[in-house]
């Protein structure tokens, strides 16, 4: 769902800009307010907000307004790792059911005798 090409294109476009990359790198260490994000960057707050809008549209970053402070955080990871985790679960069951097949083949005669 998240890995379709259009979504990846948006992410790559969002990350193609060095300022946005540094914002993502900063957010990968934890949530930050808009002014905290702007601090190390030589640009106006409104330019930072514009970059944030691009990041938000790409699904990489989520922002949330708490009172007068807009907090930003990395967004897709929770979904991506959930997806990973669901695939792992599926794989666990695939392996289990294969072992069940082996078990049934091995015990064919035992169970027949009972």
């Amino acid at each position, binding site marked *: 769902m998240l890995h379709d090409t259009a979504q990846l294109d948006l*992410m*790559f476009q969002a*990350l*193609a800009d060095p300022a946005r*990359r540094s914002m*993502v*790198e900063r*957010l*990968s*260490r*934890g949530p930050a307010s808009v002014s905290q994000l702007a601090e190390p960057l030589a640009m106006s707050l409104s330019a930072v907000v514009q970059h944030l809008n691009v990041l938000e549209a790409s699904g*990489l970053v989520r922002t949330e307004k708490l009172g007068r402070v807009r907090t930003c*955080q*990395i967004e*897709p*990871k*929770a*979904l*991506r*790792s*959930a*997806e*990973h*985790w*669901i695939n792992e*679960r*599926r794989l*666990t*069951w*695939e*392996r*289990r*059911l*294969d*072992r*069940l*097949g*082996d*078990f*049934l*083949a091995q*015990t*064919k005669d035992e*169970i027949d005798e009972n």
Partner: protein
Amino acid sequence: MTERSVVHSTFVIERFYPAAPAKVYFALSNPAAKRRWFADPDSPNPSRHEMDFRIGGREINAGGPKDGPIYTYNAVYQDIVPNERIVYSYDMLFGEARISVSLATIDLRPEGKGTRLVLTEQGAFLDGHDNSASREHGTGVLLDMLGAALAAEG
């Protein structure tokens, strides 16, 4: 602080076994038989398995790597129709964190001389799977992908 999230997902797995439904059912319902295929034999720690196979009965399977947190599978049998159907709900704990709550249905249908098994799992996958280290790692991976893509284009 744990970031709260929930993702709902359903998956279906099918298998055909050249054995009668009664035999497949036996392997699913008899604790000694189930132990022989349910737990991962490659798991470095032998797992603890308890099973009370009746409606309302519980099943617990716990195990994991030697130094890592224990995975605990905690199930309650909700519906049992011998040789045909087993429905159970279960949650998974990773250490203390509840990482998912699921409803699973195993349907057994006779097919020729064998059995078609259909496992359907509907789950709510919770925030326990996530942590800031993996998030940071994931961002690194994303940036590496970008780097590779740009290099390929250049």
